[in-house]
């Protein structure tokens, strides 16, 4: 076998299956590791001819109990990176506190993939169409990144809105592991909705997905967040539309203008699933529906 100048190759040269976060962080400390969680994206992307080469070491984090579980402490909800999409769909705390997440999980891929795929993996894969990212963005979620530094575990929190830098690219360093997702438990007056496009619920890669959250007080909206999937290089926040809608009372004219601005905030492309024109049209339809509180996508 011809040796390569870099350690990127078609197959992993080493394998590790740590059982604790600390062990995993030490294992990836040199930054030359590919992380395996659910594997549903990784297996396909690393196939011969795929877009992702393996780094030297394949580190399987599935055995780390400390990365599982959903909990709440001091009004903050925490979801472990290894929590599966099925776990999210069935979780009682999330059904009560943030029902938009179970609702989104329910239209994610298929039963088999929901059983394997993890929320941390869906985020780190950084697909512009990543399903779980859209509702997490309107919940103002942050991701905890952990690394092994100076003989100890060091963590930093990054707002999800600052996490993505492009398709498949994030601010996570090669020696860092996404360990959990945290967000404040939404206020009771908070209303959140999510719509995903597609001719069928199963195994659909979104053509457009959209989520909107706001505090609704007699139809007057504040703390508005609008997130859009599959209409730009990353899942994105429609910042112009958010700024316009803040403090407004919902009426037909406000709805129309918000929808128009949201379409301007996006930068969709033509691809096999839809044209950019159709995506801009769908954004407007979905933003209108979300504002009219009809999330039956």
């Amino acid at each position: 076998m011809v040796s390569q100048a870099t350690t990127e190759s078609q197959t992993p040269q080493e394998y590790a299956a740590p059982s604790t976060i600390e062990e995993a962080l030490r294992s990836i400390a040199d930054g030359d590791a590919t992380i395996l969680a659910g594997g549903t994206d990784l297996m396909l992307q690393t196939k011969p001819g795929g877009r992702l080469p393996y780094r030297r070491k394949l580190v399987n984090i599935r055995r780390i109990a400390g990365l599982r579980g959903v909990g709440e402490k001091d009004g903050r909800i925490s979801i472990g990176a290894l929590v599966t999409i099925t776990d999210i769909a069935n979780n009682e705390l999330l059904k009560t506190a943030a029902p938009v997440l179970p609702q989104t999980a329910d239209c994610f891929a298929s039963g088999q993939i929901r059983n394997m795929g993890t929320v941390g993996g869906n985020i780190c894969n950084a697909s512009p169409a990543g399903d779980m990212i859209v509702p997490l963005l309107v919940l103002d979620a942050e991701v905890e990144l952990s690394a092994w530094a100076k003989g100890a575990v060091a963590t930093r929190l990054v707002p999800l809105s600052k996490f993505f830098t492009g398709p498949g690219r994030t601010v996570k360093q090669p020696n860092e592991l996404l360990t959990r997702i945290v967000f404040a438990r939404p206020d009771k007056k908070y209303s959140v909705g999510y719509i995903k496009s597609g001719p069928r619920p199963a195994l659909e890669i979104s053509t457009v997905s959209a989520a909107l959250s706001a505090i609704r007080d007699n139809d007057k909206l504040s703390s508005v967040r609008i997130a859009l999937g599959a209409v730009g290089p990353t899942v994105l926040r429609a910042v112009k539309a958010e700024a316009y809608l803040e403090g407004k009372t919902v009426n037909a004219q406000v709805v129309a203008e918000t929808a128009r601005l949201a379409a301007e905030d996006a930068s969709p492309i033509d691809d096999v699933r839809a044209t950019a024109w159709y995506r801009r049209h769908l954004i407007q339809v979905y933003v209108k529906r979300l504002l009219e509180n009809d999330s039956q996508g």
Partner: protein
Amino acid sequence: MTAKVDISFTLNGHLKKVSVPADMSALTMLRDMLGMTGTKLACGEGECGACTIMVDGVSLNSCLMYAAECDGRTVLTIEGLRTAAGLDPMQKAFVEKGAIQCGYCMPGMIMQAKYLADTKGKMTHEELQRGLEGNVCRCTGYKKVFDAVAAVVGVTE
């Protein structure tokens, strides 16, 4: 050199010890290393469900699972459903309802149906349809498949 991983796991009630390449799928291990060809390769990308197996009682696409991840776990394939008493009730129902045409998708269909029966039990017709959304049949429709599963789990409208 591709890293090799020594694993041991329970396959259909029997302990297996194998050394697998770190990047091999569970499906390739089952079919090409262990000769368990009941589990089928069709799309190879998690879209069709023909490769569905159960691991620790949970259904998944074995084409997307790393073989190394089977270490220490309990794996059930279509070959493991049959017992000394004969076919599993789900297998019998598929035969009796004529749910099988070419048969290629059947091992995956039956494993997913078994998972639904084990975890959900009685369900609505819509839940049944959603439960099998990850399994594709290219021969025919799904009505007889739904009839077969309904005969086992019971369906409420």
